[in-house]
């Protein structure tokens, strides 16, 4: 599992908790992966949309202009499940070496 896959896992996990607008997605991910710039996370988010794992809609923002909200699609949910399984396997493999 590469860092990109970990980022993708976290991003899809974040969206599984409910629809979020761009800044709401990017900020916690950047806090969790400080050496990754938001542009890279945005590129990943856009790529997921192109692959059909996420979709978007416009909705009123908090008093300001409309915001673009991202939501997980059924294909995205399946992708999240697959990534979760990969992550568990990797975690177990690492733990088996005594890494905690």
């Amino acid at each position, binding site marked *: 599992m590469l860092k990109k896959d970990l980022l993708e896992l976290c991003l899809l996990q974040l969206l599984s908790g409910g629809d979020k607008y761009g800044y709401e997605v990017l900020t916690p991910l950047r806090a969790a992966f400080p050496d990754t710039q938001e542009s890279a996370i945005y590129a990943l988010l*856009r790529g997921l949309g192109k692959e059909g794992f996420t979709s978007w809609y416009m909705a009123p923002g908090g008093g300001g202009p409309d915001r673009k909200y991202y939501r997980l699609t059924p294909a995205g949910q399946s992708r999240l499940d697959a990534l979760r399984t990969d992550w568990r396997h990797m975690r177990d493999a690492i733990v088996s070496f005594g890494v905690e």
Partner: protein
Amino acid sequence: MNRAKEAKPLTKEQYLKTFSRAVRWRLPPQESEEAIADYRELIFQPERDESRLAEELGEPVQAAHLLTDVATYRQWLKVFAVLAFGLFLLAKWTFTAHSSFTYFLGYERWWYPVWVMAVGMALSLYWFRRHGQKNGPMSKWLVLALAAVLIYGVGTLAWNWYVMSPGFLNIYRETYPHVIPWQIILQRELIINGGMVCALIALAGLVLAKCYDRRWLALYVLALTVAALCGFIIFHMKGMSLDYPSADMIQSYLFARLIPIGAAGLIGTGVALC
């Protein structure tokens, strides 16, 4: 100087402007508009600290690069290089009325601008029909630019029709080389300046077609056609002998070739607009 640049971070507006320019050059128009709208939303969040913009989001050009389909972008750069080189040749030929290719190719040089036009039209139409995108209603600036180039092209051809008419050429033959009539000077200026300016307009059309809407390619095709016609005429003028008995036939000889070339350009312009 670099230190001074680093010391002054980009404002939100400057960041978005640089990003927009970079992303428009790299992505198809609709995708770039979407990315710009997304970045506008991200940048202008009230919580966003302007002084940390590049640190958080990355440099604007780098951010645009991350969204780029590298294979398509590289292909575009190659296509652009070929088309821009063609325009450079047309501008050079109309300005100098000379081509070094004559030494290698040896073929009648007045056809060189037509070859450049054919390659430019075919390559650009193929690439933009495949990778370009329309973007909203047609720009009124495009209509105005097309009208201006068309008027210039038709005007230049009409003037050449006049100065190449047997009646005018016979008068010219009698006075040359003592007097060069103003009609000939105007013809030369129309061709030289028209060729160079149209090559520049075609380049602008190409860039606008990539960045905003593929229908701007119509401007490239039309201006390319006018530049090629100017090149065709000026090469002929340079090789023309007024002492040759068939000088009376120059007008019909030249226009029998100019009209089909112009018609091909107009068809290409129409295809680019569709």
